[in-house]
């Protein structure tokens, strides 16, 4: 391909050209805001990862020798709060979504660029609150803030931390709003709904959840603060309230939030699988509508977190049946991805390795979700390490893997440079091995009955914790490697052509890195997405290979 010359000619006027601090902090360019998010979430991820590492090391001894119980409790709270609200939820949507949504649909920017910047500031303000609450002493409620513990017994820092999540929540509401309007109104001429890349469909569904679920979390957290400060108790049994009401409202947000944390990963994988098997996606409509179905049905299943919470058996039954139904669209996606490989022409670059890892880990995560949706089995597994293992398979095995895949895939577009391919592949394999070693033993631990959030544990669980900690250290290396080589490549990497992967999609029709307004002129869309037959024909002419 000969696009290298074009790129170097245009590099002087890309969106990265300006270097002043002000040009970053006051930018309204969706690409720059994406980079602001990228740097911020890496920062929060680092703190949360250190917390996780300390917990894993402490768990090497059954009596938890590294840290005191109260420190341990604070560590898992920091880990949960930062990972959920300050890493996973913004990871793919606010970084990759912000960067590529406007380019994928052929727009110059999102619909409300200033609002987009405001989202980032709210996010950072929320993050500052949370970090502050950690510095002044930490909170030990767990990321779930269950009442009445959080409102009456935990230390008052819980107010600061809740305020942080509250503020960041508005950031994510505005991001969701921006994406919805952008996807509705900013599409280039010819870009009909069913010509949209599947990544857009998944982020549209994600945005629906962000917009409709987050406000309920906000009001619930507000109620916690009010209850904590003035002792007015809608959640306090001594004042006529009900702590289980808190759980209903919390999970009304937090269960859909689980889909905020996996749908974007599914979107990325849909892009990667089709690109690296050089084939049109199998079952476009089914993948697209399964995203929307997950977003909608995902709102109806929150009670499966509460089977043993003293919720009524009959409500539990309704939630259980709906939980089995919400598993179906996920299954549809997995089968369609597999079918896409059929008669493809598959290569195994780093993003593809991550995509294949995603399918594997997500499938295990999804299947173990069925165990937890089955009421009788959930009685044994609820609040044990089985749950920990299950949702880490979804969120780390799924979302983080998807994020890494997407980051490598779009890295040439973002930075204008190629990352080192061999290191990339090694890191992907190391992550996969480390991840499984870290989290698979926890399934066994959970079935044996080890409850979560335990600083110390009976000695017969020891061996599984040792395995898990060993895996975590491998996993840590797997995450450190990309951090180092990506930063290195942003400066020293080989210059990237406009379309290094030979991918379809509008974002590849503009130079890497793209100019300020993304496109020289507004593109006109005439084809369905993922039409690899044309690109393939050209490639076969050049290389003689199929």
């Amino acid at each position, binding site marked *: 391909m000969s696009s290298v010359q074009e790129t170097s000619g245009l590099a002087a006027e890309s969106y990265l050209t300006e270097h002043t601090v002000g040009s970053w902090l006051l930018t309204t360019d969706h690409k720059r805001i994406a980079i602001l998010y990228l740097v911020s979430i890496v920062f929060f991820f680092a703190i949360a990862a250190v917390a996780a590492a300390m917990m894993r090391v402490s768990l090497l001894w059954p009596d938890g020798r590294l840290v005191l119980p109260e420190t341990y409790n604070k560590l898992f709270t920091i880990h949960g709060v930062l990972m959920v609200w300050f890493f996973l939820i913004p990871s793919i949507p606010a970084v990759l979504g912000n960067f590529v949504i406007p380019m994928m649909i052929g727009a110059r920017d999102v619909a409300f660029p200033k609002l987009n910047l405001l989202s980032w500031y709210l996010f950072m303000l929320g993050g500052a609150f949370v970090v502050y609450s950690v510095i002044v002493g930490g909170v*030990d409620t767990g990321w779930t803030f269950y009442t009445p513990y959080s409102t009456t017994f935990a230390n008052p820092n819980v107010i600061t931390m809740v305020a942080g999540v509250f503020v960041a929540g508005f950031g994510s509401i505005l991001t969701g709003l921006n994406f919805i309007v952008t996807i509705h109104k900013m599409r280039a001429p010819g870009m009909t709904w069913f010509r949209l890349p599947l990544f857009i469909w998944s982020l549209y569904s994600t945005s629906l959840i962000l917009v409709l679920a987050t406000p309920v979390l906000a009001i619930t957290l507000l109620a916690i603060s009010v209850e904590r400060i003035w002792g007015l108790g809608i959640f306090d049994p001594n004042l006529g309230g009900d702590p289980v009401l808190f759980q209903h409202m919390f999970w009304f947000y937090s269960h859909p939030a689980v889909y905020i944390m996996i749908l974007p990963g599914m979107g990325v994988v849909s892009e990667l699988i089709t690109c690296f098997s050089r084939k049109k996606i199998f079952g476009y409509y089914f993948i697209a509508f399964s995203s929307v179905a997950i977003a909608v049905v995902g709102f109806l299943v929150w009670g499966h977190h509460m089977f043993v919470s*003293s919720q009524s*058996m009959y409500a539990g039954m309704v939630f259980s049946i709906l939980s089995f139904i919400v598993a179906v669209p996920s299954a549809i996606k997995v089968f369609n991805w597999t079918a896409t490989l*059929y008669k493809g022409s598959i290569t195994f670059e780093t993003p593809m390795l991550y995509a294949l890892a995603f399918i594997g880990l997500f499938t295990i995560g999804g299947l173990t979700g069925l165990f937890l949706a089955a009421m009788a089995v959930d*009685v044994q597994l609820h609040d044990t390490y089985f749950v920990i293992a299950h949702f880490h398979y979804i969120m780390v095995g799924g979302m983080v893997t998807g994020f890494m895949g997407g980051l490598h895939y779009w890295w040439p577009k973002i930075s204008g440079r190629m990352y080192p391919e061999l290191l990339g592949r090694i890191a992907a394999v190391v992550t996969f091995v480390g991840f499984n070693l870290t989290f698979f033993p926890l399934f066994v631990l959970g079935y044996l009955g080890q409850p979560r959030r335990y600083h110390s544990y009976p000695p017969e669980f020891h061996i599984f914790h040792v395995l898990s900690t060993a895996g975590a250290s491998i996993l840590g290396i797997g995450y450190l490697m990309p951090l180092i080589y990506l930063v290195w490549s942003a400066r020293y990497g080989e210059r990237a052509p406009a379309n290094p992967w030979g991918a379809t999609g509008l974002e590849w029709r503009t130079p890497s890195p793209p100019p300020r307004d993304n496109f020289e002129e507004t593109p006109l869309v005439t084809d369905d997405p993922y039409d690899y037959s044309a690109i393939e024909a050209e490639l076969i002419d050049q290389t003689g290979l199929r």
Partner: protein
Amino acid sequence: MPFHLIPPSASTNAGDVDAIFWALTGLSVFILTIVFGPLTYFAVKYRRGSKADRTPPRLATWKFEVTWTIIPFIIGMGIFAWAADVFFHIETPPSNALEVDVVGKQWMWKLQHAEGNREINELHVPIGQPIKLTMTSQDVIHDFFIPAFRVKQDVVPGRYTTEWFTATKVGRYYIFCAQFCGTSHSSMIGWVDVMHPVDYQRWLVTTGQGETMATAGQRLFNQVGCSGCHGVSSKIHAPRLEGLYGGPVPLEGGQVVTADDKYIRDSILLPASQIAAGYQNLMPSFAGRLSEDEVMQLIAYIKSLASEPSPGSNP
């Protein structure tokens, strides 16, 4: 480092739960095979540069889609029904169960047998006999989890939850608190001692307090002044408690409730919220004056009056 891969299974419920667990495990392995079999096969066969036939397939896409939508749905519904059936069984105590009351507090379990024996972080039970735990918490939410019995239930302040099991194997098994409850959550560990009925009787006698829960409740009934109004000789117009437990109570306003543990607890602690029809709101609240264990003793006493004939003097 001794370790197991499967937890001990020591209750009548355990087998039912394990059956679903292993069925799901089998199903998972099966699905992983049908996803990863083709995935690996395609990845190898259709790798770039291989000589595989890549003529565009003529497939009726929708047939595949319908297949892999309908089949997972049907399997899901099957598992749901099976697991829900077992769940209802786990959640519904049989009527002949021995009763034990449990109060959770940061960070210990206080248990009291109907015979009056009290324990902390230990629960002695006979083999082959259904045991029903009535549980509440003094502070935050706890959770009474016995992995060997496959039972778990949150223990919520302000209300009663129940859990039941029939132990099938003599031995000592863990009780874990499974709901995060504060600093020493991980030390809130207790033991169930499953004994032969003979040993259990001996244990009851040697550790007995001399009074059953009901008699302790009766003592309390007189001591804190309940008998002043609800007693047989009282002049005050208050509901009689003989024959009350388990029966219907018509309320002021037309509603009818059942006089269960929850109703009696609420009547003691929040007397104004449910006034029995024909009575005035005279009773003071005992919230803060009685501990959760004491309320449970009063309930045991009122329950013991259930079999006595209710006096005909009710309005």
